[in-house]
């Protein structure tokens, strides 16, 4: 049940001074004029916070979920291993992946087709969370670009790879934290014979 809270409704008090009208009006106009002067000649003290959009842009917060991108490997190929975890996680079912055999013996699959329909996408970020390879990110800090044709809203592999994240835009080296890196950290160097070494260490969980 509800709890009763006492609230005092306080009316504006109107006395003879307020009824004289003119002093109060003059004060009000004074406030208005202060805004005018500061907004026109105030420099940094402006009250105006308007951003002239196409010319000036506000940078989005760091965790803003913008347009998707596929992160690249060092050779430029997508890090994606076509595991379908993102498209499975996607509540809008906007990710379409067609897998194919990978040339790299260490990588099982790669995407032949990787499409995101940005019209269907609800920008929830679940694909990013689902990805085990850190292959899909929403860190571009950009909108989906405007389009006049529905087909243009479907971003293919090339489009998604061409976009840069904030770190790259700032000229820094991105750090990826996928399963690939995890394996590289865990596993010793390959033996000269080319065979995979026997894993001596116990898994971390056992400790």
């Amino acid at each position, binding site marked *: 049940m509800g709890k*009763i*809270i006492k609230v005092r409704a*306080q009316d504006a008090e109107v006395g003879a001074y307020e009824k004289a009208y*003119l*002093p109060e009006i003059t004060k009000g106009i004074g406030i208005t004029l202060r805004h*005018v002067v500061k*907004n026109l000649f105030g420099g940094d003290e402006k009250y*105006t916070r*308007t951003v002239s959009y196409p010319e000036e842009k506000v940078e989005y917060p760091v965790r803003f979920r913008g347009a998707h991108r596929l992160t690249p490997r060092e050779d430029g190929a997508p890090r994606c291993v076509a595991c379908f975890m993102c498209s499975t996680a996607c509540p809008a079912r906007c990710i379409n992946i067609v897998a194919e055999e990978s040339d790299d013996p260490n990588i099982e699959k790669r995407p032949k087709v990787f499409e995101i329909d940005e019209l269907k996408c609800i920008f929830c970020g679940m694909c990013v969370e689902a990805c085990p390879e850190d292959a899909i990110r929403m860190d571009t800090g950009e909108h989906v670009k405007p389009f006049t044709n529905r087909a243009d809203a479907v971003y293919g592999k090339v489009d998604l790879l061409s976009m840069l994240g904030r770190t790259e835009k700032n000229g820094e080296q991105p750090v990826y934290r996928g399963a690939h890196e995890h394996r590289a950290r865990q596993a010793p160097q390959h033996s000269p014979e080319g065979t995979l070494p026997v894993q001596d260490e116990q898994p971390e969980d056992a400790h």
Partner: protein
Amino acid sequence: MDNVMCSQADKFLGMVPYDWTMIVIVPVAKILFIIAVIIGLYTPLATLVERKLSAAMQDRIGPNRAYIIKVGGKPLTIFGLFHTMADALKMFTKEWTTPKSADKFLFYLAPVIGLVPALLTFAVIPFGPPIQVCDRVVPLQIASINVGVLFIFAVGSMGVYSAALAGWASNNKMALLGALRASAQSISYEITFGLTLVGLMMVFHTVRLDSMVAQQVDLLHWGVFLQPLALVLFFTAAMAENKRIPFDLPEGESEIVGYFVEYSSMGFGLFMTTEFIEMSAIAFLTTALFFGGYTVPTWVATDHSFAMWNVASELWPAAFFAIQMAAFFFKVTVLWLFQFVVRWALPRFRYDQLMRLGWRIMLPLSLANIAVTAIAILAADGDAAKGTEYVMMTGLVMIGLFVLSLFYSRKPRQSGDSGHGHDHGHDEQQATVAAAHH
């Protein structure tokens, strides 16, 4: 002007009779000047200032996109100046629709009836000092007629016909309602509008505007110091006549749209133009009546004259003339801008508040102002200069009281003290708030 030019001018003007020069050529030149200033400068600027100044008040940027040419790849916008052209173009090129059941003749006539009196007002307002051209003295006033201020009242009250006819001719309920409101409002404020100036006429012993301005050379003899209350009442009544916020009930966009609801295109544009012209008219008139017209403050305590100005006016009359013209248009522009400030700072009145203000507050106050002025002049016992001094004293007392009142501010009530007897203004209410429990 030097003698060579004068003789050349005389030779040229000698071809036409003297009367023609003074009766036709000079007045037409003055009319063209006023038209150029009002329709060419103040009115288009008003459309921009209306939007730009309100933007500055409301912490926005305002229109700043229209441009004609690009300079260096960037559009040349000049603070949105081209929006004035864009607005005018839009008004002219839109479709002009006429209601089927409208009275066609009056429907087309109404906007014009509004425009003409608004422009006629400028005929009697001196906008500069009399200039001496060769051996002729040319007053910078289109028509220096004896009735002066009365002419402005007569012409100004014609403006209500515009609203009344527009509302009636539209054959629209809302338009008619707006027209009725406009008529009632105009008539109510017309009285105050007229009575406020009676005090000024008593002090200056004239209704001629040029003579009134000439008597305001002394800073303390400006109308604002002689008749401060009249200034407030006059300005308020004038704005009410102009039907702008806070007195825009005949329009009242959010409720009845008003007497011009059926007007589109330039028909509506003419009503807007009239409104803006009347704003400049109010600014011109208030400057001439209360702010010394073209006079530059020349007050020095000892002999009531500022020596440098006198020297300048003798040695370099052209510069002195330029300064006086600049002073006049500076005052006009300030008062003109002030109307925009008022328009965007104050909310609209309710209709009963409007009528109460007009009949029960402003009318008695204007009568009281006349009474006080009359007593002050009577106290001087026939001495005109002394009478002006007395009136000035009452005016200064009023200004002083007003300025003092600005420093007064009521302390905000503490939330705890409700024990006083007069505290019926607020009552305690109980509000049930459903608090979400888990």
